[in-house]
């Protein structure tokens, strides 16, 4: 921990602050995840961690590393961006899965499925002339 001793306070304090903030928010999110009663409620909890929880810690790291390196080291930004971009996918899927299951089970308080005029299930046919595999069952390697 030698290099931390040389830190000036004006760096140490914000870094410590962001660290504590991030960690606390993440912890709170996790507490929510553990304590909340309904699944849909629990769905909200981890976003504390993925938003400001992560942001706090990443910021702390950025400040600290930039100071020690003596230049702006912003690569933590990459993590932050992609964390933000990718989190919705899982949560959307999970929410949808819960909804689907609740609808089947007829859980009260769940909005029903929207009536739709869908065609029966079936895969979309690929654009003509671009077919990579004449027979989809032919696995790649043949093409």
């Amino acid at each position, binding site marked *: 921990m030698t290099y931390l001793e040389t830190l000036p306070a004006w760096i140490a304090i914000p870094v410590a602050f962001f660290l504590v903030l991030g960690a606390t928010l993440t912890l709170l999110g996790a507490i929510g995840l553990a304590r909340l009663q309904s699944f*849909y409620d629990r769905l909200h909890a981890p*976003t504390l961690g993925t938003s400001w929880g992560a942001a706090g810690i990443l910021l702390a790291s950025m400040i600290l590393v930039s100071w020690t390196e003596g230049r702006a080291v912003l690569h933590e930004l*990459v993590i932050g961006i992609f964390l933000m971009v990718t989190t919705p996918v899982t949560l959307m899927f999970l929410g949808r899965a*819960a909804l689907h299951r609740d609808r089947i089970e007829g859980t009260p308080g769940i909005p029903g499925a*929207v009536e*739709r005029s869908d065609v029966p299930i079936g895969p979309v046919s690929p654009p003509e002339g671009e077919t990579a595999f004449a027979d989809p069952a032919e696995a790649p390697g043949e093409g």
Partner: protein
Amino acid sequence: MTRLFPHPLLTAALTLVWLLLTSFSLGHLILGAVVAALASRAFAAIEPERVKVRSPKSLVKLFFIVGLDIIRSNYAVARLILTGGQHGKRRSGFVEIPLQLRDPAPLALLSMIVTATPGTAWVEYDEETGTLLLHVFDMIETDDWVKLIAIRYETLLLEAFPR
């Protein structure tokens, strides 16, 4: 040029990512640009259509609004988690929000915003009716949520991305 750089915006963004990851030097700019261009070409294979941004200004504005909202809702939700367990005042529920947005790309952006903002969860979007089913952590007033999404975010998104 379009064939070489099918997604200039993406190429630029990826180059930026490269620079962030490595270091801001001319060499890495070149290297990053090459990598980014190649990656964009690969992307073009699965997504030939270019995403056009009409008004970057609206996007920047949206970015700041969302930033603030995130901070606010972080606080709100954190407080609710700490206290809500005991008092049970909080009421959560579903909100159906009719959307005008139809393009997948801005919708995806919207989904990120909704997700990144603690307190709102994207549950289902119906393509045909354009309805978004949202789950909110603390149901203040249904209309507030509709307003928040439809006005605060959707308008800006509609501005930024032409139909």
